[in-house]
C-alpha cells in the first residue's frame, strides 16, 4: 500500500479493548498488583490512560494523582480534577513544591539561569523556558537549546546556552519528574497497585522524557501510539474537548512552552506521518508528494528522527549488568 495521509487511522474501539485486556493481564495476573495509579496532568495522554485504567480495573481500583508544583499552570489542576470527577474517581492532590524546595530544584535551576541572564529573578516575576530552533523543515539547523526569559513586563530575551548552564537547568528541572515518580510509587505501594505510565510513542521513541522520572513506571499502555492516534482514542473514550483541544505543553518551565517549541519542532499531525513514513521505509519523494513538501524537507525530518532516537538511546537503556542476573518472572515475587 502506498503512503497516504490516512495511514495512522486506527480502530479506536478495538485498540481500546486490546489495551484494556493487556492491562488486566499484565497488572493483575503477571505483576499481581490490585490496581493502578495514574498521574493526571489535565493533558490528553493522562486522560486517555486514566480512562483505559478505569475500564481495566474499575473506579475502586484506580487512584488518579495530581502532582502540581510551583511552575505548573493552574489550569492543569482544574482540568485534571474536573475530568477525574467526571470519570467517577476522586483525584488525590499532592503538591510537590516543598519536596522540590528540599532538593534545591528551583535554586539550582535559577543559579544556572542567572549565569546567562544576571537580571533573572523568579521572585520578581521573571519566567524562563528552554527551546530548540523552530524551523526544522526550512534549514539544516542543529538542535542547540536556547534559554528564553520573560521579564515582569512580558519582554522576552533569548540566548543560546553553554553546555554547563544547559545541563544544570535540565538536571535541576528533572527533579520534578523524579519527585512525581517517587510520589506515584508511594501511593502504588501503599495500595499494592502498579504505576501506569502516560508516555506516547513520540515521547518514548524520541526521548522526550526523564529517565527514572516520568519513565519510572510499571506499564506503558500507550507508548506504542503516535500522538495523533492518542487523540483518536481520546475522542472514542469521550475525553472532554477542553482537554483534547489544549496545546500540549511541558508544564515544567515557568514560561509557557509547547511541546513543539521545546522539543518536537513540528506539528504532531505532520511529524507523525513523516515518522511513520520513515519507519516504514517510504522514499522521501513519494512522501513529499503526499505531504505537499519538498524531498529535502522530508529528508531533514527523517534525519531529525534518526538523530533524536540515537541521541536518546541512553534514556531507554535498562541498567546494564556484566554477568547473569535474575530477570522478573511471571511468578509472584517478594516486594
Amino acid at each position, binding site marked *: 500500500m502506498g503512503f497516504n495521509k490516512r495511514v495512522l487511522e486506527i480502530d479506536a474501539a478495538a485498540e481500546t479493548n486490546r489495551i484494556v485486556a493487556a492491562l488486566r493481564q499484565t497488572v493483575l495476573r503477571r505483576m499481581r498488583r490490585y490496581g493502578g495509579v495514574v498521574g493526571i496532568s489535565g493533558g490528553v495522554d493522562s486522560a486517555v490512560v486514566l480512562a483505559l485504567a478505569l475500564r481495566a480495573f474499575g473506579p475502586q481500583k484506580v487512584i488518579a494523582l495530581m502532582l502540581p508544583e510551583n511552575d505548573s499552570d493552574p489550569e492543569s489542576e482544574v482540568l485534571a480534577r474536573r475530568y477525574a470527577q467526571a470519570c467517577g474517581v476522586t483525584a488525590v492532590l499532592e503538591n510537590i513544591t516543598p519536596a522540590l524546595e528540599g532538593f534545591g530544584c528551583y535554586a539550582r535551576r535559577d543559579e544556572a539561569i542567572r*549565569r*546567562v541572564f*544576571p537580571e533573572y529573578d523568579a521572585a520578581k516575576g521573571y519566567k524562563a523556558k528552554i527551546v530548540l530552533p523552530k524551523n526544522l523543515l526550512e*534549514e*539544516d*539547523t*542543529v*538542535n*542547540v*537549546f*536556547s534559554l528564553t526569559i520573560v521579564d515582569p513586563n512580558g519582554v522576552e530575551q533569548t*540566548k*543560546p*546556552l*553553554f*553546555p554547563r548552564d*544547559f*545541563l544544570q537547568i535540565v538536571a535541576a528541572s528533572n527533579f520534578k519528574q523524579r519527585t512525581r515518580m517517587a510520589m506515584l510509587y508511594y501511593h502504588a505501594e501503599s495500595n499494592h497497585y502498579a504505576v501506569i505510565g502516560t508516555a506516547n510513542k513520540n515521547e518514548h521513541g524520541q526521548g522526550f522524557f526523564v529517565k527514572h522520572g516520568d519513565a519510572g513506571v510499571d506499564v506503558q499502555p500507550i507508548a506504542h501510539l503516535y500522538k495523533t492516534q492518542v487523540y483518536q482514542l481520546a475522542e472514542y473514550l469521550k475525553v472532554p474537548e477542553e482537554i483534547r483541544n489544549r496545546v500540549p505543553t511541558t508544564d515544567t518551565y515557568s514560561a509557557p512552552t509547547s511541546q513543539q517549541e521545546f522539543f518536537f519542532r513540528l506539528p504532531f499531525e505532520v511529524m507523525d506521518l513523516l515518522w511513520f513514513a520513515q519507519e516504514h521505509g517510504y522514499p522521501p519523494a513519494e512522501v513529499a508528494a503526499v505531504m505537499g513538501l519538498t524531498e529535502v524537507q522530508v529528508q531533514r525530518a527523517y*534525519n531529525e528522527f534518526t*538523530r533524536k532516537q*540515537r*541521541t536518546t538511546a541512553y534514556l531507554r537503556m535498562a541498567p546494564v549488568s556484566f554477568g547473569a542476573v535474575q530477570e522478573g518472572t511471571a511468578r509472584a515475587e517478594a516486594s
Partner: protein
Amino acid sequence: MLKFVRKEPMAVSGTIENELRAYISSNFLFSESGFPYSDDTSFLQEGLIDSLGVMELVEWVSSAFNIQIRAEEVTAENFDSVSRLAAYIRRKTAPAEAAPVLEETARTHGNGL
C-alpha cells in the same frame, strides 16, 4: 564602561583541521587511534557528535580560536564536519572579517552566546 577591542585569531592556517581532529577524537570519540574518518564525514549523520556535543564544540571553538559565534551561525553548514568547521573558522578569523568584540558581553557571557 564598554569599549571595543579587536582580538587576533590564535590558530595558524593549515593546522585548524589537525586541531579539530585532535579535539574531537579526544573529547567525543574517546579514541586512542586518532580521527578515523574523512574530513567531510558528517558529525551528526554518523553519530560522532550529538546536539550536546555541538554545544561543547561551539564553546571550545569560540575559546580556542578566539572568535565570537552568533546563534544563527550554529548550523550544519558551519559545524557538521571537520572541513566545514575549518572553513567556518577560517572565514571568521580572516583579518578583513574579524569582528570587534564587545568586552562587556564577553565578560558577562563568554563568547556572546
